[in-house]
C-alpha cells in the first residue's frame, strides 16, 4: 500500500456519500415522481443538484474500479465501509439531527472493521488465487512466506 492507493480508498468513501446526499437533495426539490409522469426523472437529471450528485457518483465508481484492480473485494468492502459513517454524519448534519447512541455504536463497529482489515495485506497473490489446491478439512493452511 502506498499513498496513492490510500487516496483512492479515501475518494471512494468521500465521493459515494456526497453523491447520495446531493441526489437526495436534488430529488427533494423535484418532488415525488409518479409512474404517469416518469418523464420528470429525465428532466431531474439536468437539475444542478442531481447532475452534481451523478458526477460525484461517477467519480466514486471510477475510484471503486481503480481499487478493485489492485485489491481484493474482501479488502475494499470493509475498508470503505467508513463511507456509511460519512453518509450518516452528512445526513445528520444536513437534517440537523442528533447522533444517537445506536449510531455511535455503529460508527465504532465500522471503525473497528476498517482497523482490522487495513492491517492485513490488500491482495491475495495471483499465484495463490489461480492455482489454489483446496486444503483438506482440518489441514493446516499454508501461509505465504
Amino acid at each position: 500500500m502506498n499513498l496513492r492507493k490510500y487516496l483512492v480508498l479515501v475518494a471512494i468513501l468521500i465521493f459515494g456519500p456526497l453523491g447520495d446526499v446531493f441526489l437526495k437533495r436534488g430529488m427533494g426539490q423535484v418532488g415525488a415522481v409518479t409512474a404517469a409522469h416518469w418523464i420528470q426523472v429525465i428532466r431531474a437529471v439536468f437539475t444542478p443538484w442531481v447532475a452534481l450528485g451523478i458526477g460525484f457518483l461517477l467519480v466514486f465508481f471510477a475510484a471503486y474500479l481503480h481499487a478493485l484492480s489492485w485489491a481484493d473485494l474482501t479488502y475494499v468492502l470493509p475498508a470503505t465501509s467508513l463511507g456509511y459513517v460519512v453518509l450518516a454524519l452528512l445526513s445528520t448534519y444536513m437534517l440537523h439531527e442528533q447522533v444517537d447512541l445506536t449510531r455511535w455504536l455503529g460508527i465504532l463497529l465500522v471503525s473497528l472493521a476498517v482497523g482490522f482489515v487495513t492491517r492485513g495485506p490488500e491482495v491475495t497473490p495471483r499465484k495463490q488465487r489461480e492455482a489454489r489446491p483446496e486444503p483438506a478439512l482440518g489441514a493446516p493452511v499454508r501461509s505465504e512466506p
Partner: protein
Amino acid sequence: MRTLYTWVGIAAVVLFSSAGDVLLSRAMKKIGDVGQLRRQIGIFGVVGRILTSPVFFSGLACMALAFFSLLLALSWADVSLVAPASASLTFVTSAIAAKFLLHENVDRRRWLAALLACAGVALLAR
C-alpha cells in the same frame, strides 16, 4: 405476504449486488493495476480495456438489477428495514462469494472485518 415480498426483495438486492461486486472485481483483476496500466497505455487505453470487457458489463448489469430490486423492495417496505438489511448482508455474502468464486484469501481478520462492518452498517443505515 407483504413480509415475504419484502424479504424476497432484500434477498434479490443482496444477491445481485454481490454478483455485481464479484464480476466487477474479476474484470478489474483481469485488466490489471489501473495505475500502472495508465502509465503504459494512457488513460484512454485503460478506459478502452474496461469498456471492451464483457465481464465488466455483466457486473454493471447486476448492479443495475440490484438497484431496481432495491426500488421494488422500497415500495413494499420501509427504508429503515430495507436499506440496513440489504447493505449489511451484502458484506457477508460478498465475502463468501469472494472466497469461493474469486479464491481470495479470506482469513480470520477479514471475516471479522466483514462481520463488524455488517453489524455497524446495520446500526447506521437507517
